[in-house]
């Protein structure tokens, strides 16, 4: 199985799941599960298979030779980790939506798998045209997930999500075409290949504008303040599986774009843009945290906390030293687990209580102790408790960023305090206190949910206690990433 077959396999799995709903309501879920598990097994095999020139897998095939466009898929350590995260959270999403989705099961799983396929494409494509194709195409199934199975305001949220991403994507398209043209004028070769464009000579003025085109597209997806307003709506209105994928994976595509494309393609422009970008990152950290604290909606709070956490990634990428870059990558992965778990919890609560409003919660720990304990764990992870993955990521980003720019780092460090405030207030308002007199016991987590949550806990603890494997995997990329700087 090559990388292309992996993507096609996910796509085909989606198709089969959609058709299977005709003869059995349960079939689509099981098919999805089977597809994701076998894709995961393949990935495991590829990982064990080791690297060849730093790549675990590579696929190349000419596509539109007239424009130098090819299907160029490569998987290095960074891509491998992110693809693994994608498949794992895909599995989480399937499990999380096991009983939540009540209608059109086949179409739901279809959209889920197609989104995942698009994301895998984004994480592995190293042809800018192909990257853009995946970037846009993953939107459509995600849009349907929100628009069809979302909550009360799904129309508004889905539209906002689509508009933000699509419009910023147009800027990126313009930037991509212009970049290719600049390279063509300089070298006489039309090519969308990442490696070719990496060494393109670009006029500094032009590079600045091109970098901004990419930057805006990725910061919308990240999301960074002030382009974040789509996120709380989309996350809150999406069904649980949608939120898990959005927060766990789709935000990482933005972060990935920054680290893989923006800085390496335009090192000088990125250097010049360091302070504004880091300031935006710090602003996201603090402002996102501040907004999170003011929410009464469980899901919305978690959504805003994502803005805060992804701010660290922005900070780390543009600080651009080894510590910060490694920290940003760590933060991407750890945040994927912790937020996915919290969104799954929000979904589980909504399914049981039919509300996300924390003013109507309180005392849930007594009614569902297992859920309480699980939530406690992830809340603590999210506020950056040492020993868990998020701490490693945030701490390293701050250490690295401090060397690059003191002012923004100090501001961002305040975000850790804010994180403690909103995280604990989330816990307090929903789970602690005493339940109402007439409250009946809730259906606590069963084996299905506990298994998934347990796996994510193990992952976060492992990342927190022994993060070295992640650093080793990312090291070759980080080296080239830093090498791209003058």
């Amino acid at each position: 199985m090559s990388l292309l077959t992996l993507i096609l396999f996910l796509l085909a799995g989606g198709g089969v799941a959609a058709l299977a709903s005709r003869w059995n309501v349960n079939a689509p879920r099981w098919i999805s599960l089977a597809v994701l598990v076998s894709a995961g097994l393949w990935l495991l095999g590829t990982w064990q298979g080791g690297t060849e020139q730093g790549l675990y897998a590579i696929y190349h095939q000419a596509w539109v030779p007239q424009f130098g466009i090819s299907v160029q898929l490569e998987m290095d350590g960074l891509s491998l980790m992110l693809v693994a995260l994608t498949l794992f959270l895909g599995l989480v999403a399937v499990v999380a939506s096991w009983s939540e989705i009540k209608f059109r099961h086949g179409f739901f799983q279809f959209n889920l798998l197609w989104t995942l396929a698009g994301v895998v494409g984004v994480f592995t494509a190293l042809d800018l045209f192909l990257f853009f194709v995946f970037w846009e195409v993953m939107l459509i199934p995600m849009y349907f997930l929100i628009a069809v199975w979302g909550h009360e305001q799904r129309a508004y949220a889905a539209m906002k999500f689509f508009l933000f991403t699509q419009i910023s994507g147009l800027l990126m398209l313009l930037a991509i075409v212009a970049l290719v043209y600049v390279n063509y004028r300089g070298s006489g070769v039309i090519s969308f290949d990442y490696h070719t464009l990496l060494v393109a000579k670009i006029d500094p003025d032009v590079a600045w504008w091109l970098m901004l085109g990419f930057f805006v597209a990725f910061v919308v997806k990240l999301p960074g303040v002030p382009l974040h307003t789509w996120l709380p709506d989309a996350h809150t209105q999406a069904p649980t599986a949608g939120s898990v994928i959005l927060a766990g994976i789709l935000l990482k595509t933005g972060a990935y774009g920054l680290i893989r494309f923006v800085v390496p393609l335009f090192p000088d422009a990125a250097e010049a843009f360091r302070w504004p970008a880091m300031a935006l990152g710090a602003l996201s950290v603090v402002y996102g945290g501040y907004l999170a604290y003011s929410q009464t909606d469980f899901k919305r709070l978690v959504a805003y906390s994502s803005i805060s956490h992804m701010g660290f990634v922005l900070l780390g990428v543009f600080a651009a030293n080894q510590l910060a870059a490694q920290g940003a990558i760590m933060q991407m992965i750890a945040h994927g687990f912790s937020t996915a778990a919290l969104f799954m919890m929000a979904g589980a609560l909504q399914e049981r209580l039919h509300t996300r409003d924390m003013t109507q919660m309180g005392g849930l720990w007594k009614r569902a102790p297992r859920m309480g304990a699980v939530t406690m764990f992830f809340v603590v992870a999210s506020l950056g408790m040492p020993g868990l993955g998020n701490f490693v990521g945030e701490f390293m980003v701050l250490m690295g960023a401090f060397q690059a720019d003191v002012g923004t780092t100090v501001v961002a460090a305040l975000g850790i305090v804010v994180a403690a405030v909103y995280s604990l207030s989330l816990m307090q308002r929903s789970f602690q206190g005493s339940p109402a007199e007439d409250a009946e016991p809730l259906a606590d987590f069963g084996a299905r949910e506990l298994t998934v949550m347990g796996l994510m806990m193990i992952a976060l603890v492992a990342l927190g206690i022994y993060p070295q494997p992640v650093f080793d995997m990312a090291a070759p990329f980080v080296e080239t990433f830093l090498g791209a700087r003058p």
Partner: protein
Amino acid sequence: MSGADVYSLAPYLVLTIALLVLLLAVGFARNHLVATAVTVTGLLATLIASVMTLGAQPRTVLHLLHLDGYAGFFNILFLIVAIVVCLLAYRYLSGRRGELEEFYILVTTATLGAMVMAASNHFATFVLGLEVMSISLYAMVAYPEEKHPPLEAAIKYLVLSAVASTTLLFGMALIYNASGSLFFEDVGKIENARFQIHLQIGQAMLFGGMAFKLSLVPFHMWTPDVYQGSPAPVTGFIATVSKTAVFALLLRLAADGSALTNPVVVISLSVFAVLSMVVGNLLALRQSNLKRLLAYSSIAHMGYLLIALLGLGRLPEPGFAVAAAMIYLAAYTLMTLTAFGVIASLSSAQAGDDAQTNKQYLGLFWRRPYAATCLAIALFALMGMPLTAGFVAKFYLVAAGVQGEMWMLLWALVIGSAISVYYYVKVIYDMTVNDTPDEYPHPTRGMADIPTIIALAVGVLVMGIYPTPLIKVVQTLIGDFGS
């Protein structure tokens, strides 16, 4: 006329013969099915002839028709549309009382007119082609004459179109006065410096008339009303063939003559382009009627296309601009026709108005999954989503714009496309709404409708996923164009 001339003219001759056969068949015995079958066969034969003559050496036949690969490409496009329209019209019209067979004669003549325009290199063939096409279209629009909206649309189209035609004719007369020739290549020539002003005004009138036919802002007023009132298959024909034919001709006119060196023409075309992209999309936002929405979106698309036309004068390799226009027109034709095909498949000449209000599309995904999926594909393509024809086309335009460094127009393209996302997605959202009462009485299902629109939608996807062969064909066809 030599044998080679006849060979080059084969598509035109075959279509004319088919037209005569059809006339005789209808005169001999009226039968809707037979008339449709004869027409489709004739169009298919012409399509085959066009494909066969595609590789032939470019020839100017009878001085007035330049039969090259460029014309052949558009002829194939027109014939495909005509076949689709006939297939869709069969079920659409079959409920209507009265004679139905003449409709197919009109489709054939309109196609012939469009084909003449694609090959025209002289004002005489220009006017001939344009009028043959337009006059057929007036009658096609008014074909379900028992209903009010088609009649209104036909009158509106007739009057306004005639005004545009006279403007064109007057412009041609002024140009002739200055240059003493009716060939496109002489459009910029001046026999006598005294007539400089005639040439200027003539060119302005000429391009103004063309802008009307392409429904560019500010000459767009007629479009939504005509789109809304016309029967859906005919709207599909107007939106694709009549626009494409005019644009193909305009491009040849611009490439052969030196109109694009006239700053007045360039500036006004640029203004039309920006206005069309922005205003067209803004007005589309406010529509709750799918046909009107598509009308405004087509205005915007014609605005995008002007980037390719203006690129002709600015690109280091003008051939790229021509290729961009051809690819865009092909993609635009496919996706627009898919959209109108879906509307036609949900409508009927006898049952009230066509399905076009947004209420009629609520929950269409669950009621009519195939039609809804095809419409969604068409709308995503019009939006410019990757893996659809619309993206390849938009990509070409952006590439042309970047090469010509036409940043103003590119910004308008980005802003226009950004606005357009909203209204296209809105329609798609409406189609996903759950559990809606089925308010619209379904027309009887035709045999050909769903397969036809599925074939079109698949075409949109194939062109988007694997455009390489089409790009190759276009690159070979434009070999000698405009040189």
